[in-house]
């Protein structure tokens, strides 16, 4: 189902095993990335873009709901909660400049 996208290796920190990551859903907590494109129905894609999920913007998964629900992403100066299935349609490229970011 998922369209073929070239996976890239994320240089990971000590605890995180290296994995191929191409969507926001797979990104480990605290890992900075750059958004590439969205593959979502028009209206929700638009809303996500209005909330700052724009190609080229930086996104960090900051928190997960207790019990494993949606995750909160830091994007464009605010925090937005998305479900896994939505995040799985948000494609990313790794931030070339940084590695694991330590969250305060």
């Amino acid at each position, binding site marked *: 189902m998922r369209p073929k996208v070239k996976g890239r290796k994320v240089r990971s920190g000590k605890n995180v095993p290296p994995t191929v990551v191409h969507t926001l859903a797979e990104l480990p907590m605290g890992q900075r990335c750059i958004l590439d494109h969205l593959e979502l129905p028009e*209206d*929700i894609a*638009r*809303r*996500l*873009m*209005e*909330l*700052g999920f*724009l*190609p080229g913007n930086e996104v960090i998964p900051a*928190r*997960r*709901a*207790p*019990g*494993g*629900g*949606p995750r*909160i992403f830091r994007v*464009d*100066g*605010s*925090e*937005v*909660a*998305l*479900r896994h*299935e*939505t995040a799985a349609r948000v494609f990313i490229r790794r931030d070339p400049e940084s590695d694991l970011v330590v*969250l*305060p």
Partner: protein
Amino acid sequence: MSSCHGGAPRTNLLPNPAIPLPRAAHDHPIIVAIVGPPNSGKSTLFNRLTGLRQKVANFPGVTVEHRMGKAKLKDEQEVFLVDLPGVYSLHPRAEDEQVTHDVLKGERPDFPKPDAVILILDSTNLGRNLVLAAPILSLGMPTLILLNMADDLALRGGKVDVAALSAELNSPVALVSATKGTGIDRVQQFLLATAAKLSTVALPRVELPVLQDVPKCRQWAAKLGVRASYKAPSPPLWTRRLDTVFLHPIAGPVIFAAVVIAVFQSIFSWAQPAMEGLKQAVAASGHWMTSVLPDTPFRSLLIDGVWSGVGAVVVFLPQILLLFLFIGILEDSGYLARAALIADRTMAKFGLQGKSFIPLLSSYACAVPAVMATRVIENKRDRIATIMIAPLMTCSARLPVYTLLIAAFVPNIPILRGVLYLPAATMLSLYVLGFLAALFTARMLKSTILKSQRSSFVLEMPPYRWPTLRSLALRLIDRAKIFLTRAGTVILLVAISIWVLAHLPLQHGKTPPLEHSYAGMVGKGVEPAIKPLGFNWKIGIGLITSLAAREVIVGTLGTIYGIEGDEPSEGLQKAVRKDLSPAGAVALLIFFAFAMQCFSTIAIVKRETGGWKWPIFQFSYMLALAYSGSWIAYRLASHFLT
């Protein structure tokens, strides 16, 4: 939802060069719309300028309908402000955003197109907030741009050059704090200028980006930010620290449970002294009136009818206020949005999403605003399902009924090693029962008549804020007013009617025994239907009157026992024990947990779903649930409790 709106007149997306005609203030009232992203402080500003009390809370999507109010200006100029639901753009996804879109474009048949706009943006995240400036400025109306939360911006070390931004946009710009009131005089000036002569107010003249294209708008906003030397504030550290605790996989749920238990325990312990005080006051004033008034039917009406009936309900004010205090803290602090996040997974299992949880929580106060609040849910079928289940949540009108019955029947013994007492635990179980019934109903609806694709959940998390004493106090005062008004109208009316019906028809010029009065006959009439549930005809009278509103049953019983000569309210607990067996009390609690006894809710459901179909379905469904539920409860309880 498509962006087409039937045959409504199309409006230009480009700046409209035609300047609106100057109008004399007495000719038409001038209307200024307050627009902005969700949670940017629109309602706070509206309240400050009009002196009204629109609901303010710290999560996106509080305001869901337009609301007009007259601005208080130094001159006697008439300017009306309209508070609107928050929007991210003029591309509505949900019903509340549609309202803002339609009002701004003049596409609402019942509302004139505004003459000017106040665009209120969150200055602590100006880059993203300015994106909304593009579509709003392109409406071509005189626009004042307010950069709100100036206090927060300064505190966290952010900066912005207001004059530069104003020059860029050719519109007045001001840095304000809607809560603190700084910079508000600039708003007054704008309103006066707008009222005096529309043509003198500058129209925005900017090179606008391609509106359909969000990335272009964002780039435009970024460029503006640079030209206005915008320095973003440092991240909200306290919000992050608090989230570390509240969203912690273990600490989070534990804290949540502790808070919930504390709420229920306090409703029984903290509110008790205040309630006892009120009871004594009602009883004492009743005695006093009996002693000073001559023994006439009027005295009987006043004391046995009105005083016992209204008094029986009024004593529950402390419990109601305590509940609203907790809801207020939840809403004002920003925790509510986190609760929605945590709930999303569970809600998804029942076919809904986290956003449905916000109206459901506000249903704990009252189902009427909760039904309105469902407008933020984008998916229409999800929205209907949420409306259908909202009245199953335990609203505050059930609180007097629950408290009365629990206090009368449940012994005050500690359980869980004294963490909780049995009455509070019973109350908590009733709340849980209502919630489970709601989830079960949602599941049923979403897998049959309201089936839809799995919806998405997108929610912006607000920063935590301290609930201010002022805003909490205002909430409580407003709630007390509503509660007492209801006691003074609906319940008063019912009390008087019951008193009259209980004294007629006269037998040989004397009042009949209650059983043979009109009220008694009605009660006797329904008795066969409710006997299987363990209720007698007196409870029957209460049940019928409680169709208007749930707490009315308490007033009605107060009146009935008042007429029968019991002490007003003091003996209400004792008196119900004569008419209900413990099993009957369990059945009555279950009945109230499930039945839809509220005219206002029926009316709002009809309005929000646009017809009688859904309210009729809902009423019948809930009645069936209540009847079968309490029948089963009565059988089981009769078996175990004797």
